[in-house]
């Protein structure tokens, strides 16, 4: 196998943005924390042990929609990087172009994982109706 020569106008190493990778997992973590804290505060301060959890379920649904929108944008951003140039997988050459595509592909995968995890965390709204 010969090494590919990148002739694309990929960003320089110093201009590459690693933060994009952790955006989706961070949204997932924040969604989980917000959902958990909202339910905990509501049941401790507002709802009685058998009190309705309806407002919290709506809040979690709204958090979930917002989180999924954020994760989708992050995933699409990663997808654009993954599709940069004309090369296909695997992006495993030591070139600015493959580095750019690899980071994009990793962002897409993490966004997918975060989306599934966010939906799993939100699944509780279908099962819990009160503060018991």
């Amino acid at each position, binding site marked *: 196998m010969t090494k590919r020569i990148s002739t694309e106008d990929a960003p320089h190493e110093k201009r590459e943005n690693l933060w994009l990778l952790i955006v989706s997992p961070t949204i997932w973590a924040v969604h989980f924390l917000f959902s958990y804290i909202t339910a905990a505060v509501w049941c401790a301060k507002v709802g009685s042990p*058998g009190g309705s959890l309806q407002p919290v379920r709506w809040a979690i649904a709204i958090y979930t929609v917002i989180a999924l929108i954020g994760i989708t944008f992050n995933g699409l951003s990663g997808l654009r990087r993954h599709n940069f140039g004309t090369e296909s997988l695997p992006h495993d050459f030591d070139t600015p172009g493959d580095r750019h595509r690899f980071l994009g592909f990793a962002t897409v995968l993490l966004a997918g994982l975060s989306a*599934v995890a966010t939906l799993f965390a939100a*699944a*509780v709204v*279908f*099962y*819990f109706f009160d503060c*018991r």
Partner: protein
Amino acid sequence: MSGKRFIECPVIVFAVALVLAGCTGPQSSLDPAGREAERIAGLFWWMAGGAVVVWALVVWLAWSAMHGRVSRHTERQARLYVIGGGVLFPTLVLAGLLAYGLGMMPALLEPAPPGSLKISVSGEQWWWRVRYHTADGGEVELANEIRLPVGEPASFELESPDVIHSFWIPSLAGKMDMIPGRRTRLVLHPTRTGTFRGQCAEFCGDSHALMAFPVVVMEKDAFAAWLTAQRAPAATPQADAGPEARRVNRGRDAFLEHGCSACHTVRGTLARGAIGPDLTHVGGRLTLGAGILPNDHPSFVRWIAETDRVKPGVLMPHYRMLPSGEHDALAAYLESLQ
């Protein structure tokens, strides 16, 4: 069969038998005796079955990848393996197990019907204060033992005055934390009679592992008779001059003289302390020291004289300094509290 295999077979059979032996007993969630524990055991077996299937599938895929002919796989098939086996399949399996597990929760958290037996349990370092609420609004305080009628729901209110404990009777239900400043609830539906074991399931200090209690599930009539007996004050020691009665009377006097009554209650006597366990019917319990010693004379003597050695960190001081014969008399008195 070669000699090596001849030796290996019994070893494997023994190892499997040893592991399976752990599936039963008075403290096994895999040997359920309550409705909630049956559901949890069902969840365990589904999870275990799912894990075995996934494991077998992964091993088969790994074997195929190593020994299968690469030329047979098109790129499309390879992608199908990676995306289908690595993304879709685990996601669907996890979603199914999550839905099944979450679906059980509402039923497990369902409150007991009105009029059910109500019991308050307070987890304290390192024993259990148990209060039965009777139908007439009264209370019967006991300690370190719980008895329940079979086939009847029992509603527990759980609390703690010191640190977080966790109330767990694996044979009957899942565990529930006891949190200072909060009151948590748990409902049990025992389905068969027997003696089981509860255990604190949240590390709570030096003697956390020594904080257990027996749980007796009884027929309804036997339970009603037992609760009536527990409600009664302690029997007054006989006034006759027999040697056993004299020993019991000496023990009762020692109990009051040495300050035991400052911490313990014995209903029907001057002992009205509320810091330690209620001892009104301690002689009739199955165990001593919160499930760690058998209820017999030597254990009473050992508990009184070596409290700090039997249960490290316990608030109750040891009474090694008592004159000769006092331990024996105290033990005889406590044993008499049936």
